[in-house]
């Protein structure tokens, strides 16, 4: 297992409020890690620390054997991409121009970038959106376009080491078909050696997608392991405060949580 993005004792305290306790976490290239937990458990804080969006109060984040702060901004952007929960873009770009923004850290030329943009749009079933006005899209369509943007950012192997894609609730506004599409896209990317870390609320979707499940509570990691190891009725009851039934997916063999 090649550890490529890791948190070494990182914590986050903002205005005397500890959002993330001292945390060790390793994310490997080609592996999909899902982070789950109740609201306010520190999932987004962990993601912000891992991506360098928030400066750690203690400890450090290591990307491809180098401290996150020591990276040149453009090099780092070629290996680490982030899809935030909400997008605040309020200008009427054409969809293809939004996706092309993902090519900002690369100097690969207009023709090449255009091919990558088209391929990324095809990957999210968005070819017919190409010329549309981003502001006129539905929330789910905007979410898919933003996904295409981060895919375009990491489309090819980087000379600077393993690539990592971190997503904050990417399925929140997607319909069933596009949730399935998203799972496939992420699995394909992982198969190409991209390390994927995704914050999710849907435990069943997480169990289907991830190699590893991380459960958080009150700013700390309380369980980590394969979905079958982690998803236990006792743990769920303790962390989420609800009684559930566990069955096995009839086709995939992954655990299924039933409320």
């Amino acid at each position, binding site marked *: 297992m090649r550890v490529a993005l890791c948190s070494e004792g990182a914590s986050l305290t*903002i205005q005397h409020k500890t959002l993330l306790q001292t945390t060790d976490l390793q994310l490997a290239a080609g592996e999909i890690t899902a982070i789950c937990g109740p609201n306010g458990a520190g999932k*987004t804080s962990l993601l912000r620390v891992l*991506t*360098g*969006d*928030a400066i750690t109060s203690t400890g450090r984040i290591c990307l491809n054997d180098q401290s996150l702060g020591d990276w040149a*901004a*453009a*090099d*780092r*952007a*070629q290996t*680490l*991409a*982030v899809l*935030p929960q*909400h*997008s*605040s*873009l*309020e*200008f*009427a*770009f*054409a969809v293809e*121009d939004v996706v092309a*923004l*993902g090519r*900002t*850290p690369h100097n690969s030329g207009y023709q090449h970038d255009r091919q990558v943009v088209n391929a990324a749009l095809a990957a999210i079933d968005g070819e017919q959106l190409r*010329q*549309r*006005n981003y502001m006129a899209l539905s929330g789910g369509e905007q979410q898919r376009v933003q996904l295409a943007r981060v895919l375009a*950012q990491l489309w090819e192997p980087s000379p600077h080491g393993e690539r990592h894609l971190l997503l904050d609730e990417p399925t929140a506004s997607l319909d069933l078909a596009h949730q399935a599409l998203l799972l496939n896209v992420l699995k394909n990317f992982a198969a190409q050696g991209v390390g994927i870390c995704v914050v999710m609320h849907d435990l069943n979707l997480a169990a289907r997608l991830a190699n590893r499940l991380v459960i958080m509570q009150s700013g700390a990691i309380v369980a980590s392991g394969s979905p079958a190891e982690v998803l236990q009725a006792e743990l769920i009851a303790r962390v989420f405060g609800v009684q559930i039934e566990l069955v096995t997916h009839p086709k995939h063999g992954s655990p299924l949580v039933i409320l």
Partner: protein
Amino acid sequence: MSRINPRTFLWLAALALVPAMLSGLLLGPITIPFSAIIDTFVHSGLRTELNVELQSQLLILSQIRLPRMLLAALVGASLAICGAAMQGLFRNPLADPSLIGVSAGASAGASFVIVFSGGWLQAGQSHETLGLSLMAAGAFSGGFIAVLVVYRLATSASGPLNRGTSVATMLLAGIAISALAGACNSALSFVADNDMLRRISLWQMGRLDGANWLRVTMAGSALLVIVVGFLGQSKALNALLLGESEARFLGIDVEQLKRRVVLLTALGIGVSVAVAGAIVFVGLVVPHIVRLLIGPDHRFLMPASALLGALLLVLADALSRVIVAPAELPVGIVTALLGVPFFFSLLVRQRTRVT
């Protein structure tokens, strides 16, 4: 989307600038025939052979109309490109230098210099270069402080998770800055003598009738610097429209970008205010029209705004000279009359989008 190809639009705007500039030369209290312009260029070395009427027309053209038209074009271009960049920085199409207090701050800075530089600024032509440079420096400082304060207020108020710019805070901060700058101006007017008063009142209201070749040179140099500077930031500004964090994830040095845009904007607005006073709404109206026509990509938005800003101000100035001829209206009044309806329609649209 039915938009014009950005490159085509740049060519069209540049082409449209030619007849606009010609009309800027020909229109005015004394209408000059087109042939006089040709004569200026053809006979510039042979003035002795010309009759008296033609000679006076040539004098009007070279000493009054030409510098004035060029100053209008340069100031219009500066204001529009600064408006476009500032709207990118604030990620909001309502950010206009005159609305968020930058122009007010700059004019307070200029008044400050007029009053405290004492009598020797008025000593006459010999000190004009120095005086104007000092005034530009004062205007630059005032504008710089204003952008900085408004930006800090408007972006920190929205908290760490949602880092968007708060429109309400931005406009309120603009009102506060404008009020403070107005108070400074009043205080300065109170201690100023008659001549200073006349000069201070010039900065409250944008006008181009003080145009001369020195001002043209100054506005031209400033425009050159800010165009080159802004175009270098156009890709970064595009990324910034996604949000500050997102721009960082795309490898943009956001702090450096902000510093540069703030400095360049203060320079553009400061020099514009020093040479022509506070001309309002050009920085709001022009980038907005351009965005509707060719989209928000800063690589095209900024040069196209510069061209259209030049076009608008040249036409507005020509208009201001013929509406009440032989008197003339300060051009700031014309641009305000054009800009206010635009601003209202933008406000209404923002309201409907938020609620």
